[in-house]
C-alpha cells in the first residue's frame, strides 16, 4: 500500500488561506489504513477547519482515490457541495490528489505527504521494502531487496560501515546484506553473495511511468 501522513494542520490552513468554503475528500484504501485520510480523519479535519473559521461544504471518502474515473463520478454525485466550495482538500496520496485536480477547476489542496510503498508490519507500523525500481532483483538476492533496504542501494555486498550486522546509517537496523547472508546461510547457498551484479538500468525506470495492457 501507499503510506502517507497528514501535513501539519498549520500548513494545511496556510494553503487554504485564500478561501473560506472547503470540500473534503478522503480515500477508503491506503490513506484509511495509515489513518491519514479515512472517515475518521475526514471528520476530525472537518471539526478542526470549522474551529479555525472555515466553512466545510461537505465531504466524501472515495473508494480508491487513485482511480481517476471513479473520483470524477463520485465528485459529480456530490453536486452542489463540490460546486459550492472554493477549494477541495484531499486527504489521499499524491496520485489521489491528482485524480481530483485533473477533473476539477477548483483549487485542489494536498493534505498529506506521500511517503512510500509500504508493508504493514503490524497495526500502525509500516516499512518500505520495495522502491518500485522497475527491474526486480529479488530472485538474485534471496528475496530481500538491497535497492530499498540499503540506504545506499548497494548491489554487491555490505559497505565498509557494516559491523556486527548493523547498518552504518541506522545503528538500530540490520544491514540488508547481513539479512541476505543469514537467509542464504539457512539455505546453504552463496551465489547471491559472490556473483558481481552489474549497474542498474535506470532506463527501465523512467519518469513518468506508464503502462498500457495489451487487449
Amino acid at each position: 500500500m501507499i503510506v502517507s501522513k497528514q501535513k501539519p494542520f498549520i500548513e494545511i490552513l496556510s494553503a487554504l488561506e485564500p478561501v473560506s468554503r472547503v470540500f473534503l475528500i478522503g480515500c477508503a484504501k491506503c490513506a484509511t489504513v495509515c489513518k491519514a485520510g479515512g472517515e475518521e480523519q475526514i471528520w476530525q479535519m472537518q471539526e478542526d477547519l470549522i474551529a479555525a473559521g472555515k466553512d466545510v461544504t461537505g465531504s466524501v471518502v472515495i473508494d480508491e482515490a487513485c482511480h481517476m474515473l471513479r473520483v470524477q463520478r463520485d465528485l459529480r454525485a456530490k453536486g452542489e457541495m463540490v460546486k459550492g466550495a472554493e477549494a477541495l482538500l484531499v486527504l489521499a496520496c499524491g496520485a489521489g490528489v491528482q485524480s481530483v485536480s485533473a477533473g476539477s477547476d477548483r483549487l485542489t489542496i494536498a493534505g498529506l505527504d506521500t511517503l512510500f510503498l509500504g508493508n504493514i508490519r503490524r497495526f500502525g507500523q509500516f516499512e518500505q521494502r520495495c522502491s518500485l525500481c522497475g527491474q526486480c532483483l529479488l530472485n538474485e538476492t534471496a528475496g530481500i531487496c538491497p535497492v530499498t533496504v540499503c540506504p545506499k542501494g548497494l548491489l554487491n555486498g555490505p559497505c565498509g560501515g557494516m559491523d556486527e550486522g548493523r547498518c552504518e546509517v541506522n545503528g538500530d537496523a540490520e544491514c540488508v546484506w547481513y539479512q541476505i547472508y543469514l537467509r542464504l546461510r539457512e539455505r546453504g547457498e552463496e551465489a547471491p553473495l559472490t556473483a558481481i551484479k552489474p549497474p542498474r538500468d535506470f532506463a527501465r525506470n523512467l519518469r513518468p511511468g506508464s503502462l498500457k495492457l495489451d487487449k
Partner: protein
Amino acid sequence: MITPAPMSSTLREKLESNHFVVTAEVCPPKGCDCGEFMEKARSLKGLVDAVNVTDNQGANVRISPLAPAALLTREGIEPILQLTCRDRNRMALQSELLAAAALGVTNILSLSGDYISFGDHAGAKPVFDLDSVQLLQTIATLNAGRDISGAPLEGAPSFFAGAAAAPEAEPFDLILPKLAKKAAAGARFFQTQAVFSPDRLARFTEAVRPLGVKIIAGIILLKSAGMARYITKNIPGLKVPPEVVAELEAAESPLETGVAIARRLAAAARPFCDGIHIMAMGREELIPDIAAGLRNEDN
C-alpha cells in the same frame, strides 16, 4: 595534440617489487585555497610513498580531490585519488577519471562513500549509481580503452586501482565475498580501516593473499581517550577497543602514548601486510615516529 601527463605509479612499482610502503592521507580544503594542504603534503615528501586525497570526506563538501591531487603530481608527490560513488553518477565518475588521467593522477581508491546523513548537506540527493565494485570495473574498462557503454576512448588511461577493506568487521564470511569481487573487478591493493587486532588482520591476510591484492593496513594515531571514544561513536566502520581507550585514559601524555600504540600496532601488523596507511589525524609530523623501522630500506 596535447599529450596527457604521463601516468606512472611508483606505488605500483614498489608494491609489485615487494617494497613495504607507507601512505598517509591529507584532507583537501573546504574552499579553494590549497596552500595549507600543499604544505602538509610537502612535509610528507620522503616520509611516505603516496598521499591519499580524500573525497568529500564524511559527506562534507570540500574541493574536488582531483585539483589537489593534480597539484601534488606537479610537485612529484604521488597522490592516491579517493573517489566515492556517493556524489557522482556513472557519467560523472568516468569523466572525473578521464580528467585525472589527463593530469597524470594514476592511483585511484574506489569507495562507496559514507552516507549523506553524516555530513553537512544532509538534504542532498545520495547518488550511488554505481557501487565500489562497479566503479572498479569501470576503471578497468577505461584502462582497456572504452567507456562502460562500449564506446572507444581517444587515449586510454592506465590507472592503478585499489579499494577499501574493513578487516575487523564481522561477520567476516559476509565481507570476504565482497573483497573477492573487488579483486576480480581490478583492485590491486586494499587500504584497510584502522586495525587494532593483529589476529584479525592475520585472518584477513590469509583470506585475501590468494586474491593477489596487496594489503596496506590502516594505523590510526589516537591523540586522546576522548578522541578514541568520539571516532568509535561517530565514524562508520571504526571501533577502538576498550582496552586501548583505557590505556589512553591512564596515560600521562596521551599523545605520546597514542604514538606508542600506533607504533606497536604497526609493528604487529608488519608481518601481515605490504604497507601501512597512517591516519595521523592532523599530526602528520609524527608519521616518521610511527613508521620508524618498518620499511625495507630502514632495516
